[in-house]
């Protein structure tokens, strides 16, 4: 947060609130989205606690806008309990390598099968659709792979419909890390660099599809 905010005070250990994202975006861009040279918008955001609205104060050129966004009951966050010490296999690759693959995935397949292994085929993406099965293999020494730490051969299937939303993050990112733990839980971490050069991470967690026989290649 220190990279983005000049002041940042949180008086409780953690504060969770739920708000409408498009309303927040409209408020943040109330003075327009194009940044004129010389014009900068200042923002102050505060939240008094449960039951209070999220307050935004924006100022540009002497004009002040005050926004009160109503908050909602936060959903329970799913805790996948994915811990880096339990990671069995990890691959870091450049996003462009994965983007093409994801763009060509056979969407008639219900699942995406990911195989990670210290031996051949090293890293394989498979689908089983109406036209047949497809397997996409990445060579171990591919330029796109920045790090390859696979200790065990693992094959896991994940519902394609659950992974689909992650393609938006994939499109914006420059690098992605793919990790699995002993239970086959999948962690996708996307490194995104925004227009100002700031780096942020988006993480996706997905549990394996349960009606699958393991070891199937």
């Amino acid at each position, binding site marked *: 947060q220190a990279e983005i905010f000049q002041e940042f005070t949180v008086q409780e250990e953690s504060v969770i609130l739920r708000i*409408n994202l*498009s*309303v927040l975006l*409209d*408020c943040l*861009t*109330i*003075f*327009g989205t194009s940044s004129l040279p010389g014009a900068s918008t200042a923002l102050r955001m505060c939240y008094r606690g449960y039951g209070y609205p999220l307050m935004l104060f924006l100022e*540009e*050129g*002497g*004009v*002040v*806008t*005050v*926004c*009160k*966004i*109503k908050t909602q009951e936060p959903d329970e966050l799913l805790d996948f309990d994915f811990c880096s010490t339990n990671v069995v296999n990890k691959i870091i690759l450049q996003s462009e390598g994965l983007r093409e693959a994801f763009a060509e995935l056979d969407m008639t397949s219900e699942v995406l099968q990911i195989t990670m292994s210290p031996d051949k085929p090293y890293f394989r993406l498979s689908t089983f659709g109406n036209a047949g099965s497809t397997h996409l293999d990445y060579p171990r020494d591919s330029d796109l792979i920045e790090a390859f730490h696979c200790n065990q051969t693992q094959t896991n299937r994940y519902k394609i419909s659950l992974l689909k939303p992650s393609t938006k993050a994939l499109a914006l990112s420059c690098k992605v890390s793919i990790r699995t733990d002993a239970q086959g839980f999948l962690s996708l971490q996307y490194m995104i660099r925004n227009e100002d050069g700031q780096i942020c991470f988006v993480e996706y967690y997905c549990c394996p599809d349960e009606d699958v026989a393991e070891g199937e290649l």
Partner: protein
Amino acid sequence: MRFRAKIVDLACLNHFSRVINTIAKLAKTCTLRLTVSKLYFILSDKVANGGVSLWCELCQGNFFDEFQIEGVAAEHNEIYLELVPENLSRALKTAQSAKAVKIKLSNKHCPCLRVAVELPSLSRSSRIVTHDIPVGVIPRRLWNDFREPSVTDFDVSIYLPVLKTMKSVVERMKNLSNSIVIEANLRGEMNLKIETDLVSITTHFKDLGNPPWASEDGGQSSTQGGDLEGVAEARIDIKKLQQLLAGQQVNPTKALCNIVNKKIVHFILLHEDVSLQYFIPALA
């Protein structure tokens, strides 16, 4: 009834086109009133318009090199036409680099404004593109429907903020709400407010200034008792406000509004040779 006019100067032509483009953004159909000295684009506050009125006035001498009119009768040397301004706007789009544009009222099969655009061409004879824009002739007995609306007993009169900022703010607010409240006082302060189930947003403008006549009338009209201290507000349809602001292609020389508390907001935008008045009534 006769009318013919001609524009030769390219700057005047582009300026005229810009005015027509603005009108086209504000009204699907409107009335064009032609007199010896002026052109007026008028929209009356019928329910079909959502109750808004428009009054735009141009001095013909600032635009046209030739302008001849013969009205319905000698004592009433005026012509009132009903037309779709978008048609005129589209015709003028072809005139961006024209040598001359002639406009003439004609009645070959039905009343039309014939717009003849003379375009430059490599050969000796010029190319002429002609647009026939259908118009309705409004009979004299209905002319009273199109008188200039006036809002004399306003509660607050105030100069508008920089239109660009106002436009950005209103556009964002339009995503979140159907109505907007404009509130202003005699100390040069204006607020734009929306309030919905999800969010409430208020934008505060200061140091806008009030026109010199503001305080004179402000005192006379406080029928609700003296404790109003010159504050007025009105809740209006946000789309109408956004249309007005979006249609401004050039910054006006003067921009102000008069507010009658909870009744109507009267916007006045003045350019060098065009004045535009737009009336947005308060929502019930």
